């Protein structure tokens, strides 16, 4: 039982990697990368979880109530926001690749050539 969260994180990462390896489309590949990234959320939140712990917000509960770890939650929070912008950056690159090579298949990606500028 105690191993389950760590295995779930590893499984999520693994299916993300499988998707990246077999991907035939860059947009699909970025989706798979997001799945890989989700495994870090599972891992981090599982590390900080405490049985019976409350949220680390002491608005209507006294200080000293056992609460889950706020540090990993802060990490996940910034992770999600930065992850979303990184996905946008990658998608912008995909648009560039699609314009240049007229394909979104990683297999058919050609190396950059100097005179190939639009």
């Amino acid at each position: 039982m105690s191993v389950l969260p760590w295995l779930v994180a590893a499984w999520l990462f693994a299916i993300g990697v499988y998707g990246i390896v077999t991907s035939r489309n860059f947009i699909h590949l970025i989706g798979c990368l997001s799945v890989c990234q989700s495994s870090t959320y599972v891992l981090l939140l599982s590390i900080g979880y405490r049985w019976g712990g409350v949220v680390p917000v002491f608005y209507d509960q006294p200080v000293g109530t056992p609460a889950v770890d706020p540090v990993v939650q802060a990490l996940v929070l910034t992770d999600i926001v930065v992850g979303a912008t990184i996905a946008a950056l990658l998608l912008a690159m995909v648009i560039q690749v699609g314009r240049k090579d007229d394909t979104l298949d990683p297999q058919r990606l050609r190396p950059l050539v100097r005179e190939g500028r639009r």
Partner: protein
Amino acid sequence: MRPRLVIAALGGLGLLPAIWKIALAMPAFGEPTGAYGPVVNRLGPPLRHVSNMVGAVNFDFRGLDTLGEELMLVAAVTGTVLLLRGIRGEDLSARPATAGLPVVKRAESTILVSRLLGPLVLLFGFYMAMHGMTTPGGGFQGGVALASGLLLLYVGDGYRAWRTLMRSPLLAAVEGGGALLFALAGFLPMVDGKAYMENVLPLGNIRDVFSGGLMLVENGGVALAVAGGFAMLFLEFLEETRAIDGEDRG
């Protein structure tokens, strides 16, 4: 594709024992061993007069790390904007297009729901950003909610209405200004000879909206940067739907 899959499978098989060993060696689930979190939970409220410990970690105890994340966000948005705008040309992005791809006619119910929900989502975003120090929320979440509220304007009223409101210089100023506010807020204590980001402003009372001192400024900076950054991303991607070459230059 085949050899690639074989290599990946071999690599995965090789890693399997290591993953299993690490999974067994991890601390028991539900009984964290780290001391940092519990210490923050116990000392955070009396020391910083805020009730949301996630916010306190983000903007005070590990504020410098958040500044790093903030700069990563700005860098990613800048890169996206550069890549997308680089093809179209700067002058083309600065003003709304006169022609675009044919727009699907929106159902009246879509327009109604978007117009009703848009202001509500914006209000909720403000609420979330402002209450970051007391209840769950904060600049990151509030900023994303604000940007989504702005995007509802596009869903409801279409590209033209969205573009007349969203000007890229304004969004750039909001985004960069927010990040700058965060970075500069850290220098404020140094005027007084204190350490970077030391919380020198009056802390206020716990459970008060305006509690947390310097954290409030940093939180506001993050809310601006995130909202501006995401709105900027939406704008640049929506620009991709406009007519690409020639027709709308005149």
